[in-house]
């Protein structure tokens, strides 16, 4: 699949000499949903704003559909849409005017049929004549999405799309994002909610302190970096850990009946078979076994911690 977005060695300094982005390299494939994860102030929004032309970056190149976004800004911006993090809307304008205004800005001639279809898709049609100030937070978020889609972009940036949105609406938003992607829109989203990245994305990048520290397919990432925990439930409790079991570093639950042992899938060997054999050798009968995989959130926290430690050391 071809790259719709190519970012090469992009660096951005703010006026106070704060380095917001440092040699960022990233390729986004056409048709994918890409999640950009990172703590507050990591550079997620700065990267998105640099791609969309909202802030100027200092060095490097950004290409959309193989066209430089500075030299060919008219062509590249026409196919790009952005949903900002904040609810930045004109309170006294109606939904209808707001969305049509956005379409005009992007150089598209008025198409009331398309806007009607879009508002219906986003469950905003009933509110088309309402002023923005009369809408709920969730509705405003939808208006922002409608504005970003008003010119039918091929590449859509969602900057924290479900920030301060309740759980029900968050699920609705996810459905909207999935539908857009099914219709051929490439989506790049930044999020704090790892659950969101896990649910939606095909690939994930982690950004910390202005640097991309990891890019991989979500499933591979979980598999590659994920730790697994095996839980062995016994019929009888372990009264004292000795014998063969004393060499393992496992934990017991309060009933002393469930052994939790963590191992890394990435290592060449795991001691799972040996552990099961030793449980049997020490005379315990196994009632049940199950495994748990570490979530993207745990991986993310681990990565950021490691990266921060490296930064402190250097």
């Amino acid at each position: 699949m071809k790259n719709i977005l190519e970012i090469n060695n992009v660096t951005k300094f703010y006026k106070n000499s704060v380095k917001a982005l440092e040699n960022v390299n990233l390729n986004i494939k056409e048709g994918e949903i890409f999640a950009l994860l990172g703590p507050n102030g990591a550079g997620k929004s700065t990267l998105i704003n640099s791609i969309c032309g909202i802030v100027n970056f200092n060095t490097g190149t950004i290409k959309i559909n193989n066209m430089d976004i500075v030299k060919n800004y008219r062509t590249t911006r026409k196919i790009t849409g952005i949903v900002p993090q904040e609810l930045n809307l004109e309170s006294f304008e109606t939904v209808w005017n707001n969305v049509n205004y956005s379409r005009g800005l992007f150089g598209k001639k008025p198409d009331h049929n398309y806007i009607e279809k879009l508002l219906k898709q986003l469950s905003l049609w009933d509110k088309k004549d309402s002023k923005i100030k009369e809408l709920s937070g969730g509705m405003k978020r939808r208006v922002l999405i409608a504005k970003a889609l008003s010119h039918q972009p091929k590449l859509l940036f969602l900057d924290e799309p479900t920030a301060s949105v309740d759980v029900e609406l968050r699920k609705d938003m996810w459905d909207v994002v999935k539908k857009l992607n099914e219709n051929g829109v490439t989506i790049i989203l930044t999020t704090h909610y790892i659950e969101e990245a896990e649910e939606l994305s095909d690939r994930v990048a982690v950004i910390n302190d202005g640097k991309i520290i990891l890019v991989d397919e979500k499933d591979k990432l979980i598999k590659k970096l994920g730790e697994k925990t095996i839980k062995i439930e016994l019929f009888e409790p372990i009264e004292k850990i000795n014998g063969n079991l004393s060499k393992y570093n496992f934990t017991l639950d309060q009933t002393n009946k469930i052994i939790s042992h963590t191992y890394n899938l990435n290592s060449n060997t795991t001691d799972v078979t040996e552990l099961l054999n030793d449980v049997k050798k020490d005379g315990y009968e196994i009632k049940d076994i199950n495994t748990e995989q570490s979530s993207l959130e745990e991986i993310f926290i681990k990565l950021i911690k490691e990266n921060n430690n490296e930064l402190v050391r250097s």
Partner: protein
Amino acid sequence: MNWYGVKAIYIHEMERFRRTLFQSLASPIITTSLYFVVFGSAIGSRITEIDGINYGSYIVPGMIMLTILTQSISNASFAFYFPRFTNTIYEILAAPLSSFEIVLGFVGAAASKSLIIGCVIILTANFFVDVRIDHPVLMMFFLILTSITFALFGFIIGMYAEGFEGLQIIPILIITPLVFLGGSFYSINMLPEFWQKISLLNPVLYLISGFRYSFYEVSDVSLFTSTLTILTILIGCIIFITYTFSKGYKIKD
């Protein structure tokens, strides 16, 4: 050229004007009427004529200029500062619009509003005094050029302002005094020689003088100098805006 984009900004801004039509028109009409009452009746009873023109009629071009200058500046500065304040500017910056197109949309709307208000003032003035326009084309030329130039000036203020208070400082502290001291309500020939020379340093004098010429064929300075002054300010504003946009200063972090 992204004409749809320019049109979107222009219509969006004019829509704001329509929503606040009463405030937009009532204020200049009331102010103009008050000027006629205060200057026309009170002072006009002592100064009957200047350069052979009835005093009430003489001050009409100055009053129009006063309103055009302040309205152009405030319309454009507010129009551009407001999206900066509400952060809705992200959309304009992300759109396929050149800086020229952005300025054209905002300044075009601000200048249009000023022109409408200017025409309303001419109509209002007709209720109080005889208004004669000897050179209507020249009058429109000055009216349009001044509206555009000072809308550009207002746009600069809108780009640089740090708060709503900042939008008011230059119009109140600089523009209004310059208009009052620029011969809006008198001819500089009525001043002592020293103050006449000082007045010549005031650029607004040249605008009012040229504009008044288009009405009554009387002026304090030559028409050529007036035209040159307004064009110089216009070009200065364009250069300044182009430079600011190219650097992204105050707009693109």
